């Protein structure tokens, strides 16, 4: 009993630390990625007591973005505007971040790890209705943004908040349709089970990944997920050229940092979802529980610990790849107009999602025949 609790706590702590660490690192990806795309150097200044310079280390600006910026933000004055709803103004950033963070509880980081007599499922919380849990927590995420906009007592902020909630609710529908189609084709709501079903190969060599099963869902989930994270090209709620900064116009210091972190955590969440649903989760091609089974017929036996480590690393590498992909899109495309955004959501993605769902259900019923 006690050991189970300890195992659960360790899994949760590992997940939280990884998510927070990667979220912070994404700030760096974002800034250096933007610099790379815009053909400039980017953050390259801060150093600790000149140590890096003395030893001739190249400065990649990691200290700037990961250490100096957060310290700067959290030591700034935390300003609350006149006439604001003080309690909700304080609560809103945390209300935005919290649902995103708890969603990671169902992300499977690996198959099973054998330690002594214990078989540890490398998923912080094994929930058999995980897909519903995802939709519920993502749905709650709207509140922090909307309330942040309202509680600031500022027209721009309120407009941003209203835009954000309209956008997030609209794209949640497309997102749910994509997830439902995935659920129908796997026949389970359990994310760990979905990852296990993506093991094995087709035609002797092709990994059985979801992207080959549900390509349309992948596209819908990618677009809708990017709209959920409210970044360019879907950054209408915070469009600088129209709304100052949208829903966090009146936020400063640490609370604004929390809002920023929410955006990045959402990017990470979208990547986790995409990897879990469509890119095999923790699956490494041709790797089974007892080692590699190569297409040619070769077999490389590996101990459980190595397999688990490989899966764990593979999962996070895939997630980081998709984070980078989203950052690439963010610095490539211009912002949508509001009517274009709504048209894409309601006239593009929702009908496409419905069609995809109907076709998927038809194929499952005809092909399954169980």
């Amino acid at each position: 009993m006690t050991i189970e609790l300890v195992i659960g706590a360790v899994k949760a702590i590992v997940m939280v630390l990884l998510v927070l660490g990667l979220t912070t690192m994404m700030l760096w990806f974002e800034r250096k990625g933007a610099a790379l795309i815009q053909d400039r150097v980017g953050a390259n200044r801060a150093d600790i007591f000149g140590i890096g310079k003395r030893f001739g280390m190249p400065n990649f600006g990691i200290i700037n973005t990961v250490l100096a910026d957060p310290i700067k933000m959290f030591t700034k004055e935390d300003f609350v505007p006149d006439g604001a709803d003080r309690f909700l103004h304080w609560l809103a950033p945390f209300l935005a971040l919290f649902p995103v963070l708890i969603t990671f509880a169902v992300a499977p980081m690996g198959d099973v790890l054998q330690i002594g007599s214990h078989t540890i499922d490398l998923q912080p919380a094994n929930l058999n209705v995980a897909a519903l849990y995802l939709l519920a927590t993502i749905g709650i995420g709207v509140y922090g943004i909307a309330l942040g906009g309202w509680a600031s007592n500022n027209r721009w902020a309120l407009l941003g908040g209203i835009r954000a909630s309209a956008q997030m609710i609209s794209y949640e529908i497309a997102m749910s349709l994509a997830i439902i189609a995935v659920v129908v084709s796997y026949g389970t709501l359990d994310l760990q089970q979905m990852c296990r079903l993506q093991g094995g190969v087709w035609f002797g060599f092709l990994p059985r990944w979801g992207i080959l099963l549900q390509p349309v869902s992948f596209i819908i989930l990618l677009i809708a997920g990017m709209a959920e994270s409210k970044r360019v090209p879907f950054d209408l709620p915070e469009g600088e050229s129209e709304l100052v900064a949208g829903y966090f116009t009146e936020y400063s210091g640490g609370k604004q940092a929390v809002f920023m972190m929410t955006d990045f955590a959402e990017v990470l969440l979208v990547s986790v979802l995409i990897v879990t649903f469509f890119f095999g989760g923790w699956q490494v091609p041709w790797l089974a529980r007892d080692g590699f089974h190569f297409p040619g017929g070769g077999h490389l036996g590996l101990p459980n610990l190595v397999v688990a480590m490989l899966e764990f690393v593979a999962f996070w590498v895939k997630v980081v790849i998709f984070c980078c992909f989203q950052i690439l899109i963010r610095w490539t495309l211009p912002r949508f107009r509001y009517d274009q955004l709504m048209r894409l959501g309601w006239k593009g993605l929702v009908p496409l999602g419905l069609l995809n769902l109907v076709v998927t259900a038809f194929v499952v019923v005809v092909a399954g025949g169980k």
Partner: protein
Amino acid sequence: MPIGIFMFLAAFAIIAGFGVIMQRNPVHCVLALALVLIDLGVLFMGLDAVTLGFLQIIVYVGAIMVLFLFVIWLLNIQADPGAGRHLGLKLFGSIAAAALAAEFAAIIVHAPKIREIRTLPADFGTVAALARSLFSDYLVAFEVTSVLLLAAIVGAIALARKVSAPLVLVTPALSRDVSTPASSASDPAAHRKSA
């Protein structure tokens, strides 16, 4: 579910429910209502109706309460400075509250004793069980509800949609002939001419 957790959640729901009716600011009321609904969702999960609990949170908290917020903001409803003048409302409210209290009393009196509760089937509360009962025992009711919702959506769109006036090219000569107030009001150029 341990009785202690149940008591805590139930008490929390009641306190949040008081928050809905006792606060002046409508946004705070909606938030309290969202708290009640999340709490009920957790109660459902604790009572083994896991699917229903999550659906409750997805539908009510994730969508309907956000729409409530929308309506409050769009209609710009301000904090109520205090009732007192609305005697009719008070009377109606008292009658409705009394009726609700009587209904609750009737339910509680007829509630099954703890000893009489039967054991649940093994698949109680799973998605499969819920779907099976929706698409077999309650199929007609389910489909009729869907049609009703669809009709409501179509009706809402029909009501909300602005009927645009037929496009009239307004030249100075023509603008004098535009006599219907609707079309002249919708066209600033024509409006300026007539004024």
